[in-house]
């Protein structure tokens, strides 16, 4: 069977049932997908069934004797001022409200998207006029324009829809314009044009699918906004007229009696809220469904893990307390005295406390009631926040518990208090409050200190005391400037843990320039970040120690660490534009750290800045200091970054691919600057690069990294002469040298770097290694000294098998 036929087979098999399609799996890959389905299902069912199930009598029949009743079995949400069932009326209004909202939004979407997209492709001047026009329209609040337009179209449901459709279109036009003009300049659109694809195909296969996600989210949000707007117009009496009613009109009726029967206004308001949520979730989930990035494995992994996540312990605690508080809140409504739920609670408390003095309890319980209520709502809110924002989950769990705890302590203090004396009741309630407050502050402090430890790479669990002592005895030897032992960075991903930096031991001597080389994904940049204690979330750093000038920076308190690294270490990154603040002058950015850390100011500081600018050969420094980053070229920005790093005379500069984004001519200049700084100021430099040519040119030693480990540590002078790690050999051979034979194919490294979540057993390089033998697949070779200055992690070099030495 040919491979092409295999491909056809796969195509044939890819017709899947709807619920197994990648679209639907991605749609459901987050809880909002489920919520969207459920809420939308309920809404649509209500809209379809309400007019069939409910008769006109149900919603129009007056019954003045039963007016303004509280919720009961007959009337679940109570009755209005004419004795009509609130729930039935709210449900009955669903189809009309949805119809009005969707037609208004549909109009706004059609007008907005078309005019926006057309504007994007208008010739020069016309386009400018179009954009200005849209912007002017945007300057007025949509609802105000709608009200003005209603005056033109007349006060009716149709008038309101027309008015909102027009009033809401400018904001949608603006979005469509930005998206359409943004996507037109992209490389894949250019490549489609070069491939000769028709304009229609480019629009429908290249442009629309790539902006569809945003358009869908925007459309659904616009529908939610239109719902609110239509309801507002009806509420103001400018929308639905006569005997017809939508949710907006129901609110109008309810607001008049807000203090007697809050549910009269609350029920339709809640309906609007739920519909808005449903629309928002639906837009988000649909957009996710259309994203092919989520069509692959991640989607299925995610859809399994969010369920698991929901039932994790912290979550269970939080959702449990939230649920309890909600029950607490609503319970009294179903008590014997439904009209006055507070009374029920108080009676309950009285019975529990065995007291009969209701007046006293009344006073004390006011506060308790308030706190119970607010506690319940806050806990619910935190629950929602923590559900969708993973990084705040922990703090939300803690705060949610505090709220629950605070409310409960109030209640308990109330019960325990002597109810015969109102003063005691209040005092004990106050005591409960302060107790809760102190507990809250303590817990917050705890969370903050946890957090700061986390950002510094967490606790360093692996420090055995004996190792600490052993290292201390080392101190009699000449200390390297930087010494890292067991440096490891771990990411616990949903698909499993990965270790992009794995047990790195390295020493940097004073005044050295050490290169770190490796392919992308080898962990070289992360190693640099780990040394600077800047591992990005959610990575966890661990190490036996990282000593800079003999000080172990992994155990340093956060404040001290910042100061210490600020004066001893500087980092330079690949893209100087993203490391510079575009809103501040170069001079301000250059001097900021020194002003703060070393309290040098005024003329002296300015002179220092000028000197540093001279160090990196920026001419006209006086003028340059007053300029903004965008006025600098790429090479100049990188020089400015280096100058900034030099301001505090650091002993170590870590440069992460500082020349990769620059032209070769500028690269040569920047390398010269780094070399000069090293020679004149004795600064140690760690230079990270994927280009071994650059490293050979400037460094005295090189660390070669592969799949998160150092595989070789060798002096540059020995690099060309001695036996090397096969990977180092391959890296050097892959550079097209100037004296190479042009007729021969370039040496390349077969295969590609392994995925960190699926490392091969044994040596990670074994699958690509030309000298591989059996042992390589079984054991991971340790990094061993082959001579005093040369370390290799390869059995071929450190422990060669008898028959493999020849090849």
């Amino acid at each position, binding site marked *: 069977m040919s491979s092409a036929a295999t491909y056809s087979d796969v195509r044939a098999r890819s017709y899947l049932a709807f619920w197994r399609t990648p679209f639907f799996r991605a749609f459901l890959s987050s809880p909002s997908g489920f919520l969207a389905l459920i809420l939308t299902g309920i809404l649509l069912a209500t809209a379809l069934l309400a007019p069939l199930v409910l008769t006109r009598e149900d919603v129009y029949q007056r019954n003045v004797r039963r007016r303004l009743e509280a919720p009961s079995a007959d009337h679940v949400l109570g009755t209005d001022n004419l004795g009509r069932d609130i729930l039935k009326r709210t449900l009955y209004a669903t189809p009309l409200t949805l119809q009005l909202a969707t037609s208004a939004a549909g109009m706004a979407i059609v007008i907005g998207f078309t005019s926006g997209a057309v504007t994007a492709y208008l010739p020069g001047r016309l386009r400018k006029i179009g954009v200005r026009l849209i912007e002017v329209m945007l300057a007025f609040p949509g609802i105000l324009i709608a009200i003005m337009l209603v005056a033109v179209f007349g006060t009716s449901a149709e008038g309101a829809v027309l008015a909102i459709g027009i009033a809401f279109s400018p904001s949608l036009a603006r979005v469509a314009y930005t998206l359409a003009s943004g996507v037109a300049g992209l*490389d894949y659109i250019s490549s489609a044009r070069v*491939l000769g694809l028709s304009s229609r195909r480019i629009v429908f296969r290249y442009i629309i699918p790539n902006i569809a996600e945003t358009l869908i989210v925007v459309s659904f949000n616009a529908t939610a906004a239109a719902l609110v707007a239509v309801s507002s117009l009806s509420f103001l009496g400018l929308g639905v007229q006569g005997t017809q009613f939508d949710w907006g009109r129901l609110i109008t009726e309810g607001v008049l009696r807000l203090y007697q029967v809050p549910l009269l206004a609350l029920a339709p308001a809640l309906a609007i809220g739920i519909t808005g949520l449903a629309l928002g979730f639906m837009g988000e989930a649909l957009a996710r469904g259309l994203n092919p*990035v989520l069509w692959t494995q991640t989607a299925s992994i995610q859809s399994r893990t969010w369920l698991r996540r929901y039932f994790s312990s912290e979550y269970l605690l939080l959702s449990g307390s939230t649920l309890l508080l909600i029950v607490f809140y609503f319970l009294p409504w179903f008590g014997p005295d439904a009209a006055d739920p507070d009374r029920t609670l108080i009676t309950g408390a009285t019975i529990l406390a065995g007291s009969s003095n209701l007046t006293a309890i009344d006073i004390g319980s006011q506060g308790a009631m308030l706190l119970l209520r607010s506690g319940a709502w806050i806990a619910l809110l935190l629950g929602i926040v923590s559900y969708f924002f993973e990084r705040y989950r922990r703090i939300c769990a803690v705060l949610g518990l505090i709220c629950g705890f605070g409310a409960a302590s109030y209640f308990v203090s109330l019960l325990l208090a002597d109810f015969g004396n109102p003063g005691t009741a209040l005092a004990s309630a106050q005591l409960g409050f302060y107790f809760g407050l102190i507990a809250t502050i303590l817990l917050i402090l705890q969370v903050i200190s946890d957090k700061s430890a986390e950002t510094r790479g967490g606790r360093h669990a692996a420090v055995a005391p004996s190792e600490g002592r052993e290292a201390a005895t080392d101190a009699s030897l000449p200390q390297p400037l930087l010494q890292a032992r067991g440096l490891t960075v771990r990411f616990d991903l949903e698909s499993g843990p990965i270790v992009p930096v794995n047990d790195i031991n390295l020493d940097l001597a004073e005044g050295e320039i050490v290169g770190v080389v490796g392919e992308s994904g080898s962990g070289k940049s992360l190693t640099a970040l780990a040394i600077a204690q800047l591992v990005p979330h959610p990575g966890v750093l661990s190490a036996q120690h990282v000593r800079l000038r003999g000080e172990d920076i992994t155990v340093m308190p956060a404040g001290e660490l910042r100061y210490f690294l600020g004066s001893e270490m500087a980092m330079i990154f690949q893209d100087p534009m993203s490391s510079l603040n575009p809103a501040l002058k170069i001079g301000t950015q250059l001097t900021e750290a020194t002003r703060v850390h070393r309290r040098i100011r005024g003329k002296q500081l300015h002179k220092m800045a000028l000197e540093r600018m001279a160090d990196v050969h920026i001419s006209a420094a006086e003028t340059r200091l007053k300029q903004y980053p965008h006025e600098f070229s790429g090479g100049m920005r990188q020089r400015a970054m280096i100058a900034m790093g030099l301001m505090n005379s650091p002993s170590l500069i870590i440069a992460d691919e500082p020349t990769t984004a620059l032209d*070769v001519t500028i690269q040569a*200049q920047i390398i010269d600057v780094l070399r000069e700084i090293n020679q004149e100021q004795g600064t140690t430099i760690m230079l990270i690069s994927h*280009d071994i040519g650059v490293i*050979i040119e400037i460094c005295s030693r090189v660390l070669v990294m592969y799949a998160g480990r150092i595989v070789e540590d060798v002096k540059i002078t020995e690099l060309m002469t001695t036996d090397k790690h096969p990977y180092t050999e391959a890296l050097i051979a892959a550079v097209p040298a100037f004296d190479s034979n042009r007729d021969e194919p370039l040496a390349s490294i077969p295969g590609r770097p392994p995925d960190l979540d699926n490392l091969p057993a044994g040596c990670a390089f074994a699958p690509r290694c030309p000298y591989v033998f059996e042992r390589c697949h079984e054991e991971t070779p340790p990094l061993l000294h082959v001579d005093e200055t040369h370390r290799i992690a390869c059995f071929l070099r450190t422990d060669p098998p008898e028959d493999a030495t020849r090849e």
Partner: protein
Amino acid sequence: MNKLRVRDLVVRYGQLTAVDGVSFGIPAGGTLGLVGESGSGKSTIARAIVQLASVARGQIALDEVDITFARGADLNELRSRIQMIFQDPYASLNPRLSVGAMIDEVLQRHRSLNADERRQEVGRLLEMVALDPLFADRYPHQFSGGQRQRIAIARTLASQPELVILDEVVSALDVSVQAEILNLLRELQREFQLSYLFISHDLSVVRYMSDSVCVMYLGQIVEWKETEDLFRQPEHPYTQGLIDSIPKMIVGGDPNRIPLSGEIPDPHDPPPACRFHTRCPFGPLAHPERAACREDDPHLRIDKSNHYAACHYPLVRKELA
């Protein structure tokens, strides 16, 4: 015979003259390298040839047929004959199309094959760039940079082009992957008699790929030579500077190199006469008597051995004398 011939090409973006009177030819089945710093106009030439940028003046001819202003059916035919591969394989593939679909639509456009034949062809093209035909069902985000560049190459081959413009195709890739892609491109060139315009800022890569090389500075060609000659005896000081800027795998750097100072000037306002005189280590900066550099435009001259260098004081000639 030249596959592509460009004469006196001028391309402007508003006030900016990005390409200013450039002429060169690409022999059939051969490769012309185009090097220079960013802002030298290399990519603009590429975009002009594939009609993504409009030509202000000059002529572009394919097989001696003027295609400068091709439209309609002519342009359609041209699209299959001239193709381009872009620098960033993460940006040049539509993220919403599967690999199979994006190759298939090129086949639909330029080849008269039925659905079944197209499916076979997609598999064959993927195999040609050493990818598994089963990858046809995957989406771009599932591939590494090198694999994406292979996909872009397969898609390009789908239209059976004669000339392919390679715009910095390996500069976003790791060295090891870069070597594989370059080898692949050379194999394909031999197999299909492709002509390449190879654009890069990396001279060592250009040396490996090209038969002859044009060096560009601020929208103009300053030197054009056979590759070996260019690297052995560069005549223009800018070429020398570019060669010196490349790391040579010499420990501690090449002590004899003459570094280029400064940066490429603002192309909105290029220096008069020789555009390079503000940075030239052999020009009026170092030798005040060489006033010609500031006053006369050194046109690209052709000398006996078919070398072209736009310099009043070419390096080699001075050394030989």
